[in-house]
């Protein structure tokens, strides 16, 4: 199968209905126009010789044009690699290398990647998008093509080890189907969209398009603008990050947001206090989902089924969730252990280094690295994580990546990146550095980090210390 078929079947049912609207400019694309724009992009890529199984990057901002560009890549048979626009050139170059990117489709204002001069989309929504080959003949691992890959996705952070989560067309469709069975999207739904498409197109936007919803893209994500947009445009669905909800709740008394039937928080854990405050201000409960890039949304708590608000909900149809002990045994209800997930929505492989899902899972179970427990009602509760991931305002990253960057700087012997709780941001990153005899200028070190890392990863404070604290086994203590 190919996911673009889900778009085409929506077009048959809803050709003249609006698919996308840019809230700021008021411009819209109907389903019929979205399909035509998709075909325009696909035609250019096919003319250029793009073939099934090639890894093609998409570098485009959060805008209407993103959607036909992405569907166009899929329609041409390419495996899409989203290149988020907030990545630094160094971070983008790393992805290009890790997935042996064959080519890239980029919006007109994108920083130019190296490569042959490109072919340009003429007219339409993606006017002046350029396609260029980077390494046309780069070959993927032998099993790659047989997976029917649709996407290679990177978390907003990257680990030192496994990079590039490969998702097949079938696994994406299974995720869409599973989410839809709980969220029940329909052509009556109007979605207020504030999240980065580079991280969410793969499943969420495909699900909205399959259901024939109307997606309202809100480029302004300041809290007042979001509340105004909800009151003015009356969306029925709002999917956003904890920080969006926290800041909306902080604005204080408001008319209830009566148009909304589903509010879902994603990207990072949300605090119960924020959920309570939001509901008391706006009269709508916030639901939350358990999202993992390798597994999709295996649990959803809509907030309307009487489950504790601290739970991420019961497993969604199509998924099984278990809590395992350190030796891999299934634990009973209310026992704390590592969360494992099984289902058709699981990822297909890691790209770099290449590992098939079957090599990583145990009896089909994917071990998430998150700790949690299941309650008597079968709902999952999260309780920390085994990995060292940090969340800054809903964006994820691993401190090791920042330490690697700091340690490259002349005069630094070693470093430790850790988080400090912050009332508004969740966590903020801080760094301790041990200097060698040459010493270094901390301001220059900060600028070095800002050059190579996305701004949210750059430590707010750098402190010089004599030694980095370590555990008895030699790991950095955080």
């Amino acid at each position, binding site marked *: 199968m190919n996911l673009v078929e889900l778009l085409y079947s929506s077009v048959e049912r809803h050709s003249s209905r609006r698919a996308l609207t840019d809230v700021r400019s008021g411009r819209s694309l109907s389903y019929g126009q979205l399909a035509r724009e998709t075909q325009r992009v696909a035609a250019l890529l096919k003319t250029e010789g793009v073939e099934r199984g090639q890894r093609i990057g998409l570098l485009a901002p959060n805008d209407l044009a993103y959607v036909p560009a992405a569907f166009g890549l899929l329609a041409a048979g390419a495996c899409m690699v989203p290149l988020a626009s*907030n990545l*630094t*050139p160094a971070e983008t170059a790393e992805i290009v290398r890790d997935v042996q990117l064959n080519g890239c489709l980029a919006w007109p204002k994108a920083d130019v990647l190296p490569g042959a001069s490109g072919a340009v989309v003429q007219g339409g929504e993606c006017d002046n998008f350029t396609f260029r080959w980077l390494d046309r003949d780069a070959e993927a691992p032998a099993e790659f093509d047989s997976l029917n890959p649709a996407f290679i996705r990177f978390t907003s952070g990257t680990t030192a080890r496994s990079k590039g989560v490969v998702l097949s067309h079938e696994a994406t469709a299974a995720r869409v189907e599973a989410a839809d069975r709980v969220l029940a999207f329909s052509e009556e739904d109007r979605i207020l969209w504030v999240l980065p498409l580079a991280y969410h197109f793969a499943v969420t936007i495909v699900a909205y398009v399959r259901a024939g919803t109307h997606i309202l893209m809100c480029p302004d*994500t*300041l*809290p*007042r603008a979001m509340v105004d947009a909800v009151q003015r445009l009356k969306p029925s669905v709002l999917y956003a990050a904890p920080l969006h909800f926290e*800041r909306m709740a*902080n*604005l204080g008394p408001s008319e209830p947001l009566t148009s909304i039937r589903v509010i879902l928080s994603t990207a990072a854990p949300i605090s119960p206090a924020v959920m309570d405050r939001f509901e008391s201000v706006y009269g709508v409960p916030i639901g939350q989902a358990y999202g993992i890039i390798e597994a999709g949304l295996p649990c959803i708590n809509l907030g309307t089924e009487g489950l504790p608000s601290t739970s991420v909900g019961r497993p969604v149809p199509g998924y099984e969730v278990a809590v395992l002990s350190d030796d891999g045994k299934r634990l009973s209800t209310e026992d704390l252990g590592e969360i494992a997930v099984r289902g058709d929505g699981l990822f297909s492989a890691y790209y770099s280094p290449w590992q098939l899902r079957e090599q990583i899972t145990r009896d089909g179970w994917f071990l998430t690295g998150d700790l949690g427990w299941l309650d008597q009602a079968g709902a999952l509760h999260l309780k920390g994580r085994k990995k060292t991931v940090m969340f800054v*305002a809903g*964006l994820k990253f691993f401190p090791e990546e920042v330490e690697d960057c700091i340690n490259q700087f002349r005069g630094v012997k070693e470093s430790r990146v850790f988080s400090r709780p*912050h*009332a*508004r*941001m969740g966590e*903020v990153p801080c760094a301790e550095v041990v200097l060698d005899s040459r010493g270094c200028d901390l*301001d220059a070190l*900060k*600028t070095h980090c*800002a*050059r190579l890392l*996305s*701004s*949210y990863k*750059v430590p*707010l404070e750098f402190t010089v210390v004599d030694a980095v604290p370590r555990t008895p086994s030699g790991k950095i203590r955080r």
Partner: protein
Amino acid sequence: MSRLDPEEVARAVTAFINTTIMARSHPVQPDDDLELAGLDSMALLKVLLFIEAQFGFWMPDEDLVEENIKTPRAMAAYICRRGSQS
């Protein structure tokens, strides 16, 4: 808090943006439109953290309106108004 000089504050905000956010692209000037220069909502949060650390208050969301955040100079004017109230 000693009296703040809007010029000096604008210079400090501009310098912060240029060293920690715009380190890899064109530096901004005090009167540049920050959204046009490419500052996204995450970058704005970094600026709010800077203001909190340097000037001792968190700029509340209701004040995040264009006239207060459009340019480094607009931010400086806001910071000085707040500073003189406390």
